[in-house]
């Protein structure tokens, strides 16, 4: 047995695909001809024949309990996005890259995973981080200004929201590789955006995952813009999901504003990865409804008409209508969920509004597992500066009496 199995087993893989799905390995790896979409933008369930599914690309509708739990996280996610943006406008937080409009992707990325599975998010994925169980204030600490992290990644199996594009995809590959070597059935989901697919580490991560046949689901939120640069300047591939076949893995595209379809596609991807099918690439077709961050002016590079068009495809109203039509949601249920969302918003206002005391000595404490002599010297220098500053203040106070 070898761990770099895939090159040697192309024939085996082909026959297994044939046996399991009744299709060729190429048809397994290539995305279905159309994106998977189950609920139309107006909230009606699409006829099965129009959902984009094909033999070998079949997706059952997720169970009622999963849908309701997901809807609750969706509503909370929207409230979190809007609350955080408000905190930035009030000057209580430096910056917030909002996932407004992409909340369905955020929720599905976390919900498809089990407790022992890892999530590797980007800086725009705070809602996914919270949906995986990280405390909302801890998830937002990275933007609070007193710490580059905010939580223990081991506790909830969530990487720190990563700023250098796609570098975290390789960490996902490594976590999956270590788990596989120990014989664990961990699945890792790694997130990135459409612009990030141009980065070299995107290529290296997908290739490593495929060559070592690792249980990683690469989840691309194609929100159409990398700050100002549109997708057409990043790639002229038929779709980003089509990149999968070039690495020897399966790709699929899904309506990224259709939470039902997202759950269906990602649940299956995670299941296949856990069963040993190797990595998969899922592209969610969504839209960044707001500017890149508060520092960005999106009117310089896109028309209002385009934004309005996507507003009509909003994931929240769609899911709301769908669940009510199925009798899974009523006014009481919606009110209870809204109350929960409001409680999280309050938690964020309290946690991010508070004047967080900073500990200057933390500068030196965590550079290495134990400070070097040079860091101890520098730490003493800063302590001395601060002590003299305090003494000066005390003397002034005394003189002022």
């Amino acid at each position, binding site marked *: 047995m070898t761990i770099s199995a*895939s090159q040697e087993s192309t024939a085996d893989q082909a026959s*297994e695909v044939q046996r399991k799905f009744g299709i060729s390995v190429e048809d397994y790896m290539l995305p279905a001809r159309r994106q998977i979409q189950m609920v139309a933008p107006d909230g009606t369930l699409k006829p099965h024949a129009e959902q984009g599914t094909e033999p070998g690309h079949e997706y059952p509708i997720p169970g009622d309990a999963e849908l309701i739990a997901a809807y609750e996280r969706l509503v909370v996610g929207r409230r979190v996005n809007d609350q955080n943006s408000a905190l930035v406008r009030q000057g209580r937080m430096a910056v917030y890259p909002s996932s407004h409009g992409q909340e369905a992707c955020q929720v599905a990325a976390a919900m498809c995973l089990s407790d022992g599975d890892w999530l590797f998010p980007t800086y725009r994925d705070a809602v996914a981080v919270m949906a995986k169980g990280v405390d909302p204030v801890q998830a937002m600490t990275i933007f609070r200004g007193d710490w580059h*992290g905010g939580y223990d990644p081991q506790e909830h199996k969530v990487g720190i929201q990563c700023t250098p594009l796609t570098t975290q995809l*390789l960490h996902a590959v*490594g976590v999956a590789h270590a788990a596989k*070597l120990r*014989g664990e059935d961990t699945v890792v989901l790694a997130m990135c955006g459409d612009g990030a697919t141009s980065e070299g580490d995107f290529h290296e991560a997908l290739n490593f995952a495929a060559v070592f046949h690792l249980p990683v689901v690469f989840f691309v939120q194609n929100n159409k813009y990398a700050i100002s640069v549109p997708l057409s300047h990043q790639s002229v591939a038929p779709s980003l999901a089509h990149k999968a076949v070039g690495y020897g893995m399966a790709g699929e595209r899904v309506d990224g504003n259709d939470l039902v379809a997202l759950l269906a596609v990602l649940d299956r991807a995670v299941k296949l990865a856990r069963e040993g099918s190797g990595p998969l690439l899922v592209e969610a077709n969504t839209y960044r409804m707001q500017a890149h961050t508060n520092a960005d002016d999106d009117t310089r590079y896109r028309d209002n008409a385009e934004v309005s068009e996507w507003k009509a495809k909003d994931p929240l109203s769609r899911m709301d209508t769908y669940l009510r039509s199925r009798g899974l949601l009523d006014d009481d249920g919606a009110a209870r969920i809204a109350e929960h969302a409001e409680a999280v918003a309050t938690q964020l206002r309290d946690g991010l509004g508070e004047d967080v005391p900073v500990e200057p000595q933390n500068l030196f404490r965590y*550079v290495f597992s134990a400070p*070097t*002599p040079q860091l101890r010297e520098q730490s003493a220098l800063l302590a001395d500066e601060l002590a003299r500053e305090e003494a000066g203040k005390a003397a002034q106070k005394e003189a002022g009496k």
Partner: protein
Amino acid sequence: MSPTITTSSEANGNVSAATARAAASAAAAAEARGPQSITMAKALNTAMADAMRDDSSVLVFGEDVGRLGGVFRITDGLMDTFGEQRCFDTPLAESGIVGMAVGMAMNGMRPVIEMQFDAFAYPAFEQIVSHVAKMHNRTRGALKLPMVIRVPYAGGIGGVEHHCDSSESYYAHTAGLKVFTPATVADGYRMLREAIDSDDPVMFMEPKKLYWSKDQVDLEALAAEHTANRAAGSSSEGRAAVARSGTDATLIAYGPSVPTALAAAAAAAEEGRSLEVIDVRTIVPFDDDTVTASVRKTGRAVVIAEAHGFASVASEIVARVQERCFHQLAAPIRRVTGFDVPYPAPKLEHYYLPSVDRILDAVDDLQWEN
């Protein structure tokens, strides 16, 4: 999908089989006793093998490190001994190698990875600087990255372009990385074991021109010393060595420049000048105490390094010594470094590299008339 997927039981079975083979090879190695003529390559190889035998979370991977045993053969035999799960070749992508190692270190492994040559490590620079160096700080110690990035570095081997860079300054300048560089065969073993034991990431800079240097070394005794030190919680990390004692001036060198400094000291002795040679060993953390004690004693110093002198480790050492020893100095501290030019083609490298003569010229300039 593939039937060759590792299942839990297979994985465990494979690891135990590899462990059995490892035990057998340990028994074979135990037959040789006492000091032997050993190359640094062998010392490094044995250090990895011993670490892998002691700890099943130690993994070795990179380009050509498996079947071939590395282009310098430093990983020779590790795949056969420990199996393809613990020593393996990766796709040819350095950022991928380092980035995957970060994830493995996050998830309980201790990866020891090889960058094939100094200049081939540059594609991994972002992973090293933005993640390897910062993960511990970013997570306030929740995530440790116990990983070793081995970099065959520096020149003197007649290599073509991109095969002879002295890249240590880039890493030493990055907060959060430890930077080790052995200059002796025994340190090759000792320091690599300590780097693998370290809970912090270590850039392990291997002077490639010293790979085939030999010394009388008892690897078993070194292994026993390492085991005893580890049990006592002690380490030689952060300790410079006095490679040769002297009284008149101090030569401060590291890695590939240490043998050159020793040769200069031997030549100076014939002329009646007693030079002390300090082998820095670990650039980060730096041993200010040993270096300053020597310079305070001699009152004169020359810092020697192959890397370009401008904004270099050599410059940092000069600054540190000057700050601490100003009143004991009889002369300005001199540097003998590579020129500030791209590393030259093979037929020109002897003009570039610090030589015994250039070191002795610098020593002559240390204002002996004062």
